């Protein structure tokens, strides 16, 4: 480009390179932010690779078909896998309806100016931050023993995990419902639909993508929780699969914890392999939720 008069100069060298400093700063910051992202991704990648490499020798069908044993060569995680699957099933069946029901009530029906509703709002945020072992104690006192007296069973474990993820599901559900534009509600009501028809036929279908995300978040939190399950007696040497809601159980995180605590080196390899299994189960659950979300997310074009 031929040089134009300084008043009109638009090239990078024009105006005597006055903006060169700004451009350099922009590039530096872009680099720094990419670096932050890279750290996060690299850490995750290193963890994954390390776990897979360490557990590789034991990643075989044995892991899925065998039950735990005192001899590492014969140990497997079948009881833990089934226990985890059962627990996630209970959490999904209870936390999803309860959580979204609460979210619908809080967003659509509760009067935000009333003091008790504001109190509820504040406390849901608090509950999401409570350490998981506190939920374990709660579950032990009220569900396993106490008024419900469920004993150290799958049901008690599942319900305790439900309580743990409920605040997360409620918060995510509220965000999803809040994101539905108010014009949709107005349009529905102006046609003569009732409030419930508006909520069930317009708001909820539109909020499904966000609610699916909330479910993913909840299940992801629940699958890895160890402390409450230990308190609830997820026995660490269970050689049978659960046969019902009242069965005793173990779960993958607990089994991993148990194996790591053993002195023999072979158990550490087993633990790494079990971690991989845990991640695969988590991925499978999330994939279902993501598929659901994509199926219902209708873009305008």
């Amino acid at each position, binding site marked *: 480009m031929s040089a134009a008069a300084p008043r009109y100069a638009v090239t990078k060298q024009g105006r005597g390179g006055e903006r060169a400093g700004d451009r350099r700063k922009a590039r530096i910051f872009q680099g720094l932010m990419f670096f932050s992202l890279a750290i996060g991704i690299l850490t995750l990648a290193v963890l994954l690779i390390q776990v897979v490499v360490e557990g590789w020798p034991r990643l075989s069908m044995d892991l899925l078909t065998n039950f735990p044993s005192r001899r590492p060569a014969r140990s497997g995680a079948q009881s833990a896998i089934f226990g985890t699957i059962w627990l996630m099933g209970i959490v999904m069946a209870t936390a999803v309806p309860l959580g979204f029901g609460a979210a619908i009530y809080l967003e659509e029906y509760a009067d935000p100016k009333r003091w008790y509703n504001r109190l509820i709002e504040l406390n849901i945020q608090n509950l999401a931050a409570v350490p998981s072992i506190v939920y374990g104690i709660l579950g032990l006192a009220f569900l396993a023993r106490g008024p419900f007296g469920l004993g150290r069973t799958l049901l008690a474990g599942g319900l305790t995990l439900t309580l743990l993820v409920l605040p997360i599901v409620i918060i995510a559900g509220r965000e999803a419902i809040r994101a539905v534009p108010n*014009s949709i509600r*107005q349009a529905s009501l102006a046609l003569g639909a009732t409030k419930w028809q508006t909520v069930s036929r317009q708001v909820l279908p539109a909020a499904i993508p966000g609610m699916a995300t909330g479910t993913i978040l909840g299940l992801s939190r629940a699958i890895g929780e160890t402390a409450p399950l230990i308190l609830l007696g997820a026995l660490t040497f269970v050689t049978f699969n659960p046969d019902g809601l009242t069965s005793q159980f173990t779960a993958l995180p607990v089994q991993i914890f148990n194996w790591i605590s053993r002195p023999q080196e072979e158990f550490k390899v087993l633990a790494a392999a079990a971690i991989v299994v845990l991640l695969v189960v988590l991925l499978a659950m999330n994939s279902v939720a993501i598929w659901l979300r994509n199926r219902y997310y209708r873009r*305008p074009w």
Partner: protein
Amino acid sequence: MTQGWSPVTQDDREDPPASTDGPRIATEVKTRGQADTANETVFRLDDVHVYYGSFLALRGVTLDIPENQITAFIGPSGCGKSTLIRCLNRMNDLIPGARVEGKIHYHGQDLYDDDVDPVEVRRRIGMVFQKPNPFPKSIYDNVAYGPKAIGMKPPSMDGLVEESLRRAALWDEVKDKLKQNALALSGGQQQRLCIARAIAVSPDVILMDEPASALDPISTGRIEDLMEQLKRDYTIVIVTHNMQQAARISDRTAFFNAETAEGTGDRTGLLVEFDRTDAIFTQPADKRTEDYITGRFG
């Protein structure tokens, strides 16, 4: 062609919804052509005041809205036109703290009586909003939503959807793509879809809050033509900022203005003049009306 369905047969109105969510309006709506000679008025407003909490938004409105005509509310911003129109179908109830004093009679019934079910009111008095707001569903589902929700059982839902889209002058443009998402339509098409949606539930009245203000002039013209046709079967009340539009299409015009309170600076709307449109625009009785329509303010 349509299956002979018409929006004004008594059959449609007689079908009670499967689950009644509240008390029905006490008396039946008069069918077209059988209106009492003494009751050609659809709405009778008597000294209506509208409050939001303690703030008086609109005061002392008294007017009658006639059947099968287009009544326009004009006036500068903030003088209560939208507030008033939303009171006519109880949509103002949705705003917390909104309160209506005075009487609004719809075909002789007090709209704000305890016995009145707002859901039924909104079925009979429909609304089209300023910004087109189709549901994020297919075109077909948009139109069919209302009838399904209120429990209408037409002889053919497809026929009802087609009839509604024809009446909204949209059928030819969308008949091959009824399953397409409504949000893919242009702004003018979306607004006509909203009109079709409102028509599908066989209302008596269609309220329009600045229906063309978000549209380009061509779409606006089509909507105006549409309103001329619609008034044969429905009563139309329209809020508009566009004076020329009011002068073009309405039969009656109500001019609103606002007065500012001394201390607080709050603006309270009031009805200045209400008459036949040609009278308002050629021989306004009030000087404020004359100033507004000649563009001296607003």
